[in-house]
């Protein structure tokens, strides 16, 4: 799946189709997005007055750019497959839930479980994210400029979570093969999550991911890497205290 560089995404808003949620319904917005066909000329969309609406631009499956002017409620960009969604505000719980590909950029903060179960694509949160960021992630890349809350990357299976700030308690509890990179302080690590060596390939990969996320002035070498100790991969009664 091709990586998305959100900093260079093509965004020609001069011909954007404007969708004002003060005048039209959420259903009409999502239906219009779902009716897009491959090769459609309507590649730029602007959503006005979201006012915390839930499920804005969910199930997008075409490579279109969507700028949401304001804050959104739950599940913005849920199951996004190819869309380049930018929220010029903050996002409620579950932003980018189960995203498949494409990108989502949150200019403000994000609530709980951002990028939950995400399978691909890039989620960038320019502010802070709350608890359970990247919970059960399955291939998504998540970059948080600020801090993340407790139980983030719980049962994370694959993908990469990058945090420029601090991480809360129980980071990466019961983690599988996801990779976590934290620049600041980690309050505590969850069961089976350990700090790991930053080898050259990790530095190279992380620098590339930071670039794709539009992060400047930050070096990959400033981060620590965390991942699975793989001690809980097969049940052993001697590890019962960890459960």
């Amino acid at each position, binding site marked *: 799946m091709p990586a998305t560089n959100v900093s260079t995404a093509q965004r020609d808003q001069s011909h954007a189709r404007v969708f004002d949620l003060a005048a039209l319904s959420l259903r009409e917005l999502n239906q219009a997005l779902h009716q897009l066909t491959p090769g459609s000329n309507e590649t730029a969309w602007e959503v006005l007055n979201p006012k915390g609406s839930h499920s804005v631009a969910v*199930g997008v499956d075409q490579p279109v750019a969507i700028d949401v002017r304001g804050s959104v409620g739950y599940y913005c960009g849920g199951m996004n497959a190819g869309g380049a969604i930018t929220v010029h505000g903050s996002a409620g719980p579950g932003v980018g839930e189960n995203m498949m590909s494409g990108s989502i950029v949150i200019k403000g903060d994000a609530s709980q479980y951002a990028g939950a179960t995400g399978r691909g694509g890039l989620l960038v949160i320019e502010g802070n994210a709350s608890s359970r960021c990247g919970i059960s992630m399955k291939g998504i890349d998540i970059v948080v400029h600020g801090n993340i809350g407790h139980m983030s990357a719980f049962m994370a*299976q694959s993908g990469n979570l990058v945090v420029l700030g601090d991480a809360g308690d129980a980071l990466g509890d019961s983690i599988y093969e996801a990779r976590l990179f934290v620049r600041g302080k980690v309050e505590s690590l969850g069961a089976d999550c350990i700090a790991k060596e930053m080898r050259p390939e990790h530095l190279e990969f992380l620098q590339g991911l930071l670039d794709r996320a539009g992060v400047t002035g930050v070096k990959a070498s400033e981060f620590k890497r965390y991942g699975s100790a793989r001690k809980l991969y097969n049940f052993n009664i001697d590890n019962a205290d960890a459960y």
Partner: protein
Amino acid sequence: MTYRNPPTTPRKSATFDDYTLSEIRRAAATGIYDIRGAGAKRKLPHFDDLLFLGASISRYPLEGYRERCDTSVVLGTRHAKKPIELKIPITIAGMSFGSLSGPAKEALGRGATLSGTSTTTGDGGMTEEERGHSKQLVYQYLPSRYGMNPRDLRRADAIEVVVGQGAKPGGGGMLLGQKISDRVAEMRTLPKGIDQRSASRHPDWTGPDDLEIKILELREITDWEKPIYVKVGGARPYYDTALAVKAGADVVVVDGMQGGTAATQEVFIENVGQPTLACIRPAVQALQDLGMHRKVQLIVSGGIRNGADVAKALALGVDAVSIGTAALVALGDNDPRWEAEYNALGSTAGAYDDWHEGRDPAGITTQDPELMKRVDPIAAGRRLANYLKVMTLEAQTIARACGKNSLHNLEPEDLVALTIEAAAMAGVPLAGTNWIPGKNGF
């Protein structure tokens, strides 16, 4: 000649019976609880404890085999643009690819389609075998979200948000490493050979209010076309049904504790949840109290075996039932022809439940390529279809005898209970009396 006092006959404890003793020894030797598949095996109040009152003078029967008795049902009439129309009120419950073999999933699809009913995916995501051979396929949206993607959501005919399962309300799952083939590992985005933990709760919502918003999201993604089911384990059926309705469910699925599982702790299976019989009336009552009975459809599962069970569940107010374990038996699970192999595994046909170990001689609950070959999807699908037809005919026979021209016209008044327990749970009179224990509350 010495006189010997007569010995007392050795007596085994009812509390420490042979099974319990063996389990203590096994736990002491291995240091791990027993994990197994299938549902509760202990004796529970069940549909066998209810009887139908056939018609005589006060009720007028229909002519068996001659007069029509409708079996069709429509699910998802509340919000969905495309409700599910089934020819029979018996659906195939969700069982995962990974737990079941590909040929077994295909056979379920074939059998269900031949019978005019739906089948359901499971924890492993949607397989081509199943989608390709199921005319109507319900896609489960599970806490693990293995294989979840919008493409399959849109290819489904309905979506079932699984909150709980009858065999383990509140519990997650564990697919042991030995069952993880390359294909299963890929579908679940996990390395091959490791134990795969299925979460006990959805990662991105934390309560009924979140569920309501989650359902909205799923409806928006699928353009409000698909019925949304909400499945709960039968533990607090009144409140869980009411909250599922409040959250916007088109269909509520209540799975009693006889419902099966792929792999769960024996102690969990046998000690958590309520019998299916005890779940029905509270769930129906919740719908009635909300004015939503028959508007939000109710599916009940857990130990449904024959047409009488189907008819009894419908008489108590459900719209359809689901079968899982019975469907596997119809495909060939626990068949006595594999007895020698079951014996070699320390079990016997009819009791084999170590489905998680991946060595199922019947080739159904395994990913072993050689064992899988034992399932002929076409023949096994035919067997399932035969079984579903028999169940339907049985239910129709009973309904006609009760004077009903539709299975859905059966009602609690057609039933009596053989035991006080069943009378109380089902809310029907004890046979020979007009006494319904606990009628004024649950």
